């Protein structure tokens, strides 16, 4: 998933490894002193209540770990920018995904890192791993009371791959290896041929081209969420209008005011509505990190994820409301390999890679220790043996030769080999980034490192996010451009496939037959063999270096103590279905 403006991130290495991806976001388990109710104030309240007036105690509802449940179940958080759309099939941004995850529900729901039944109560997988049969729950309804049927899923999925819909995420059906999806996206087959069919109202059958381990988890991804044929429109306007935004998840849209806020309320028709505590979720749209931080400090919002970089270092040491959540993504720079002849020389790309002190950047620029990136696939992706893809690959290949701190000698040697000793005669490169203080700081730091270590001049150019995306997608940048990629599912394929020659996400003009072949082979194989191909693909990629990995993302958050049991899925989406607002005093 393209990472919007989100950039400022921190994470201590230790935290990353101690908080396994599965432990997403349960705010209490990560702060030891709060997980034991006996030490905190609420429980002492409880004991005094019990002695003084027993009837009061009866009226107070408590969470399973002893916190008093608040009377007002309204949760407010900062969504950041106004999402372009919240139509599940049209959305391609993180902010939209947060809303969709709470308004809609797919066949499964990821909860606590595990795949749990969502709209489907169970599923059968054929022995060859190619056919999935989902059995929907009984009594599941849309927010207007109509039943959710298997046909809604079939319609939604076909709508996503239909070229007329122009969904930016159509390719993900190809990644999921659903029958004919790739051909449909390439325009070779009609979209009605997609391998999904509603056998009856309660049964959905999906046919895959190849056994795909991550397919089941993907059915919880926003693009796979059902929509109703009778209400959708081609531009996704329906999803922002409370009258037509009919959803099947725990919450439904109550009001939307452009660039101000969006209000979700509990959906009474949701199958599990009895267990949803929150009555109302207000999503503010504060785009400025500093303003959002002020709002958080004055209790106007309870959760923010855009925190001013300057504050993070201090917050990490002093605030118990500050969390660093893992995020499966990489911050990197891409080269213009199509037109820039200088950058077509692999030695130049090596020199630029080696001359960057990634540790300095994570420690002093982005702060709080994201992990310096030495490969494209970061921590959080497991291979067939259950080991971390990142650790295994980097261990085996000695970090693919990418130094965590600058290797100036190697960088200068590579540059000399390319014919520019001490940077003499090297043309001025253009480094493009989207307007954001964080990106600017990283760009300036790298610019200075190249100047000092290699004698290379770089000019920095910034563009507004929408313009920048256009520039990058059309490959109209001339030197380097910043990029960030967040995995859509916890499989290395989600990262690596953007480098396939004909991928729509391939903005660098990188084309390697060997790499394409390895990724192709990974699609027709399974298990360890498949992973070997992916390892090989990453090795080829890191030898060719069409990118400069900088660091692996983390997700720093500020969450008020009053918000209990908030969750972030493995792909970084908020889910508030289990959230309870608690009273602390």
């Amino acid at each position, binding site marked *: 998933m393209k990472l919007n403006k989100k950039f400022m991130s921190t994470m201590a290495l230790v935290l990353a490894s101690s908080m396994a991806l599965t432990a997403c976001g349960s705010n209490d388990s990560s702060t030891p002193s709060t997980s034991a109710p006996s030490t905190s104030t609420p429980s002492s309240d409880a004991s005094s209540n019990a002695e003084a007036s027993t009837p009061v105690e009866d009226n107070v509802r408590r969470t399973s770990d002893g916190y008093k449940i608040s009377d007002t179940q309204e949760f407010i958080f900062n969504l950041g920018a106004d999402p372009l759309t919240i139509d599940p099939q049209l959305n391609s941004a993180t902010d939209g995904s947060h809303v969709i995850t709470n308004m809609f529900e797919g066949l499964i729901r990821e909860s606590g890192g595990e795949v749990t039944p969502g709209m489907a109560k169970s599923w059968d997988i054929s022995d060859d791993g190619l056919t999935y049969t989902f059995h929907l729950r009984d009594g599941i309804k849309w927010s207007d009371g109509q039943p959710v049927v298997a046909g809604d899923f079939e319609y939604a999925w076909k709508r996503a791959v239909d070229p007329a819909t122009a969904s930016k995420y159509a390719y993900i059906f190809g990644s999921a290896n659903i029958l004919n999806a790739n051909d449909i996206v390439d325009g070779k087959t009609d979209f009605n041929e997609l391998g999904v069919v509603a056998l009856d109202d309660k049964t959905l059958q999906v046919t895959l081209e190849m056994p795909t381990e991550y397919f089941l988890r993907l059915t919880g991804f926003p693009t796979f969420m059902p929509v109703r044929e009778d209400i959708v429109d081609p531009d996704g306007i329906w999803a922002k209008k409370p009258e037509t935004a009919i959803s099947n998840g725990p919450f439904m849209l109550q009001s939307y005011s452009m660039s101000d806020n969006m209000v979700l309320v509990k959906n009474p028709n949701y199958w599990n509505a009895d267990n949803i505590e929150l009555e109302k979720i207000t999503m503010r749209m504060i785009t400025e990190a500093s303003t959002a*931080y002020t709002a958080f400090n004055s209790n106007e919002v309870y959760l923010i994820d855009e925190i001013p970089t*300057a504050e993070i270092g201090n917050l990490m040491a002093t605030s*118990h409301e500050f969390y660093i959540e893992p995020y499966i993504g990489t911050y990197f720079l891409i080269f213009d390999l199509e037109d820039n002849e200088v950058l077509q020389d692999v030695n130049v790309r090596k020199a630029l890679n080696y001359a960057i002190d990634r540790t300095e950047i994570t420690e002093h620029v982005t702060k709080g220790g994201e992990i310096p990136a030495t490969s494209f696939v970061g921590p959080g992706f497991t291979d067939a043996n259950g080991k971390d893809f990142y650790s295994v690959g980097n261990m085996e290949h000695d970090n693919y030769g990418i130094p965590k701190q600058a290797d100036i000698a190697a960088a200068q040697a590579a540059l000399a080999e390319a014919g520019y000793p001490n940077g003499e005669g090297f043309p001025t490169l253009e480094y493009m980034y989207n307007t954001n203080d964080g990106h600017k700081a990283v760009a300036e730091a790298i610019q200075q490192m190249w100047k000092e270590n290699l004698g290379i001049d770089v000019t920095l150019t910034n563009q507004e996010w929408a313009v920048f995306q256009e520039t990058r997608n059309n490959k109209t940048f001339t030197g380097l451009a910043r990029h960030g990629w967040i995995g859509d599912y916890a499989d290395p394929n989600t990262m690596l496939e953007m480098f396939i020659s004909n991928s729509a996400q391939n903005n660098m003009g990188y084309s390697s037959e060997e790499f394409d072949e390895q990724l192709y082979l990974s699609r027709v194989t399974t298990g360890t063999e498949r992973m070997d191909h992916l390892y090989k693909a990453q090795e080829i990629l890191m030898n060719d270096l069409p990118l400069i990995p900088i660091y692996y993302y983390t997700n720093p958050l500020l969450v008020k103590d009053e918000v209990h049991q908030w969750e972030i899925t493995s792909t970084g989406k908020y889910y508030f279905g289990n959230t309870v607002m608690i009273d602390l005093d």
Partner: protein
Amino acid sequence: MNNEWTRVTREEMTGSEATRKSLTYWQDVWRRLRQNVMAMTGLIMIITISLLAIFGPMFSDFSYSDQVLAYANIPPRIEVTKITDDHYVYVHNEFRLIEVTADGELIGIPEEIEKNTINRYITYNIGGNEVKFDYSSAMASTGKKGSTATEEVSNKMIDKYEIYVNGSPIDKYNAKEVSNKTYFLGTDNLGRDVWTRVLYGARISLTVGLVASIVNVFIGVLYGGIAGYEGGKVDNIMMRIVDIINSVPLLLIVIMLMVVIEPGLKTIILTIGLVYWVGMARLVRGQVLSLKEQEFVLAARALGVSKGKIIVRHLIPNAIGPIVVSMMMAIPSAIFTESFLSFIGLGVSAPEASWGTLANDALGGIRSYPYQLVVPSIAIALTMFAFNFLGDGLRDALDPRLRK
């Protein structure tokens, strides 16, 4: 018959004759400006700021782009804690130690022996001593769940850590605040010298401000003067051109210009040159329209003074009050326009900085590092004051109606 008249002597006649020597208009302006203390203060300030902008960076130890990332965000006043007899440290707001001298010169980052982010301490080797910097109490002192009361009590940095030298705690309150000798005005988020950057930023901001005012005077005043004095068809056409220019948003002009020339100071100056005189032209036209009906213009015309001379010598000096005020207002407005354009990527490209972009960059850290915002803001404010004082004085000095 009483003779009430007496004869005047020669001495008495010459004595009452004016002895003031004849002054030209500009000499008179200068004389009156010199008498105005505020105006002279403003003038001296502008000259000082300009000289600093031109020569200041040459005398600085750092260039505007020199970074020391480990020295990021160190304020102008630092609290120096004594570790041993000849070793002192500064505790950074981000909970790490920086070795300094007793009078506030930065020495370097001490060698880190162990960094424990779980138990929240860092041990350093400072001059052979093992220094343990323990900030585990930082979290507790901001209050755990339900006990937010402590948050109000201690919010000061110094209450949030302990320092142990070779195992024994030192008196952390035995710290004195000294000024930062290495970076006079502190460092920014990438460890760059704020003082040098502000001086460098003055070059860009003042250039933009001056260009704006010059364009205002030369194009705006003359254009408005001609339109107003000529009147009729000429006025109509000229003012419709102004309307057209005025109706195109500034941003659109800049973006279109970017297609032709690359972003940078040139683009900004050109943009400001293209649009900034519009308001002034309207203002002057209005003034001239009313002034030209007055008798002194009629007199000038009757004497056969040429049109150009009437506009330049008679009409504009009489409209000088509003002109100067509007010109002085255009300077800060141009400085802010520049910062806005730089922010959206159409202005100077990083690491070059103007006052506007410096202030903009500092905004995110306003709570912890306010000095980064204060310094460029003071620079902008002082410049505005100076221009306003000078403007006021100039208005009084230039206005022929106030001539004594």
